């Protein structure tokens, strides 16, 4: 087997050195009747070529986003990632290193984490960001728990514009930890009255902007209302590129900002791995979950970086930790940081503008179609339309013709009367031809 360096001779010599005559003597603590006496009924080892054939065959049964006009979003977005990013994250020293617990030989990881934290804090308009969470949804769950710890209350209010998977993660976690959740109805037109839902038991309000239907939300009034009642505002985003063009949640008064960073540096990957961004105010840092990287000096006074404030974490605090989390999204974080470094402020703004412009052009074209209504008044790169007929069926029909039209709202909100709603994302990868093809196909399908 190509990955195993020991030869048969090595094995017998080594067993002799260890002082046993058979490998199973080293497994003697496994109860004899539980030790497997034959190989399990699974295929036997294969060469690289054969494995490549098998997996390529599976891959070929999937339709890749870049193979045609592609408008699927709702929490994950198709963007162009510069070739440099994927090359760099495959450097052995990044790819095959561990969590930087030995900082003297992990400054590469630590320094990019410090850069990442600084970038995320700047983007979100917050004081401090952690070294990432698994993804936006689990980060949102952790943010709610953090708000409960800070406010010593345990009721969360979730906007009806929050991605329902994110809502489900919060509800699952809350149900299991005896916390209360109030979820507002799916809010297609951003008309919900979140402020009315805040009472003196409310620990936090969770609002997504752009929301799951694409509408940009004004967070300032909600932040003010939260603060007046002693609650925190948790601002969520699933499209981080929007922060290049939209006022940051921090400037709008958010206390915790959490979101999905996949759009920068990371592929769609059928849903994971992604990278959760998590930022807050300085006064809450010791209540924060997740790893933090901090600056220090070495024995010669040279600047360096270490993981810090680990007294919040499970390996030190065990059952008293702020979270059970024991990983970040390491390599996805690196991909984010490198892509963001390539973009810089100038590039990010341009990217965001192109995204917005493309979405505006598509919205204008769609609005001219009979039987189509664009529901959003203000949006970034994603819109929702009401159309004539069942959006799921139309999406399936268009997929058959090579066009990925978007996400039927009913897939995310089944049985909520949204069968005729389609969520359409539009990024820099979409061309005029793509948009024309979508509009023509929708027209024909209705």
């Amino acid at each position, binding site marked *: 087997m190509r990955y195993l360096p020991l030869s048969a001779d090595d094995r017998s010599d080594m067993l002799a050195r260890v002082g046993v005559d058979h490998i199973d003597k080293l497994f003697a603590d496994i109860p004899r009747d539980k030790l497997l006496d034959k190989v399990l009924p*699974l295929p036997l080892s294969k060469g690289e070529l054969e494995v490549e054939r098998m997996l390529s065959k599976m891959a070929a049964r999937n339709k890749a986003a870049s193979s045609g006009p592609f408008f699927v979003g709702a929490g994950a977005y198709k963007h162009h990632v510069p070739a440099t990013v994927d090359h760099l994250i495959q450097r052995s020293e990044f790819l095959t290193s561990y969590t930087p617990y030995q900082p003297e030989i992990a400054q590469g990881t630590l320094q990019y984490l410090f850069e990442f934290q600084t970038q995320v804090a700047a983007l979100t308009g917050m004081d401090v960001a952690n070294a990432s969470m698994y993804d936006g949804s689990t980060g949102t769950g952790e943010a709610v728990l953090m708000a409960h710890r800070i406010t010593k209350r345990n009721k969360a209010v979730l906007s009806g514009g929050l991605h329902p998977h994110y809502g489900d993660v919060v509800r699952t976690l809350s149900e299991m930890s005896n916390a209360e959740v109030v979820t507002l109805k799916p809010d297609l037109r951003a008309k919900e009255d979140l402020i009315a839902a805040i009472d003196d038991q409310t620990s936090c309000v969770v609002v997504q902007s752009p929301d799951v239907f694409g509408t940009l939300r004004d967070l300032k009034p909600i932040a003010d209302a939260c603060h007046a009642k002693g609650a925190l505002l948790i601002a969520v985003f699933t499209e981080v590129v929007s922060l290049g063009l939209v006022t940051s949640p921090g400037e709008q008064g958010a206390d915790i900002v959490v979101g999905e960073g996949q759009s920068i540096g990371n592929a769609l990957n059928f849903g994971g791995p992604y990278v959760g961004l998590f930022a807050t105010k300085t006064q809450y840092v010791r209540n924060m979950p997740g790893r933090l990287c901090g600056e220090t000096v070495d024995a010669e006074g040279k600047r360096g970086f270490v993981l810090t404030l680990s007294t919040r974490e499970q390996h030190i605090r065990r059952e008293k930790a702020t979270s059970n989390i024991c990983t970040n999204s390491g390599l996805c974080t690196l991909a984010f940081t490198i892509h963001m470094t390539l973009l810089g402020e100038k590039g990010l703004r341009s990217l965001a503008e192109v995204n917005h412009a493309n979405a505006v052009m598509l919205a204008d074209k769609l609005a001219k179609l009979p039987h189509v209504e664009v529901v959003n008044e203000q949006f970034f790169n994603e819109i929702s339309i009401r159309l004539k007929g069942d959006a799921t069926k139309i999406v399936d029909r268009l997929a058959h013709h090579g066009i990925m039209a978007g996400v039927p709202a009913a897939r995310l909100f089944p049985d909520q009367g949204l069968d005729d709603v389609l969520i359409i994302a539009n990024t820099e990868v979409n061309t005029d031809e793509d948009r024309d093809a979508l509009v023509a196909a929708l027209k024909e399908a209705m």
Partner: protein
Amino acid sequence: MLNRQGRPTTPANDATAVHKTFTGNRALQQIEPLIFEIGSTDQTGVDIDAPAPHHKKLGGLERKNPIGLPGLSEPETMRHYVRLSQKNYGIDSGLFPLGSCTMKHNPRLNEKMARLPGFSDVHPLQPQSTVQGALELMDTLAHWLVTLTGMDAVAMSPKAGAHGELCGLMAIKAAIIARGEEATRKVVLVPDSAHGTNPATAALIHFEVRSVPVREDGTVDPKVVAELAGPDTAAIMLTNPNTCGLFEKDVVAIADAVHKAGGYFYADGANFNAIVGKARPGDLGVDAMHINLHKTFSTPHGGGGPGSGPVVLSERLAPFAPVPFIRKTEEGLQLVEDEAEATKHGAHPFGRMTAFHGQMGMYVRALSYMLSHGADGLKQASEDAVLNANYVRAGLADLMSLPFGNKPCMHEVLFDDTWLKDTGVSTLDFAKAMIDEGYHPMTMYFPLVVHGAMLIEPTESESRASLDLFIATLRDLAIAAKRGDTERFTGAPYHAPMRRLDETRAARSPVLKWTPPLPILEAAE
């Protein structure tokens, strides 16, 4: 000595003297500033065409203030991150014996496969008819996982080991709620040797943690478990092989004791890599176990993630698995994504762990690893991992101290610091001296049940020659420590990119992001 061109072929006499360089660089080791110190907000490494003319539809929410994000051109970016990478130690750099973390070889075929556009460039919410291959891959991996573990079902979506623990305990809690016993069954038994994530996970969903002391031989005593377990017991969380590198030989009796009390057996599968193909957790009474695909099945650790932690479940817990899950239908594979739909198929999911369907990129890599090894190769890998650890044990047992005696271990060998007593050298110092010798240190000070723990896991990826050199190096170091060559240790590392870092200072006044330096005049005040 000069060659025929008159070029010296031997170093000059004073070549060993250390000269401080003008730059602070040391050949391949270059001082590298932060991007904030070398980039500028006007610089960019991507060329993006100007957008077509359009009316903005941002409401009043357009950003007005600068963000403060520096950019670098492409060559500058490349050099910056390559230089950073050169300050890191990876598995490909050398032996990485980090106990409990399983730093085995990461085959590059897996990276190549994960990047096939059919896997990397598909969206989680595309019509299911367009992702049948992705569902097939998940289903195939699930089949391998349940077969290797002898369990009934697997929840694929947890994003990492600790997330898997959470998923497993939630399934247990859901089962207890279904039995109507949530008011009484609140205790989770956790041995002292457990990973910190175990008690942290239990506490996260409001279970009470009750510690189980480890007996003198480093394992858990079923009699103690029987005494501690009762009508209040929800579960035990047991790592097997445990963090002392030992197989819990009374695991069946422990499982029986917990089951008899009406509780469930959660196994922390962090060390499953020692027994793949040798024993099946399902045969040992396990009800739920997470599998770290990034340990046992070689998906790269990536400097701290991403991981992936599918949870295998027994028949009793399978109905409570979270959404999404895959079911086979006549039209093909169906991903069941919401609870109402799941209920139609007889399931009682406790909820959802994460958006979408889990760590697809990691699934591809893990399956690529499994297909390469096959059932035979996976068994061989477990045997080699265990053999290598024992070989290290045999090579060091006379110099270093084994807290539970010199007897066979599993895939990792645990030493304590008794042998360093009165040398003035601590476990930490010893670890830092290993860095100077070109090794990544072992896991230090974990598990907590022995003093100054040194947990060494060489993995199956090491050749005999590599192990011989490693053993010889550790022997040299051990002898030096005992001989009183203290400074070699207490000041180490001397040759790493950085000397020892001040962690206390970092925690006392945390600096968690870069801030622009004050203007000179202001700073002078």
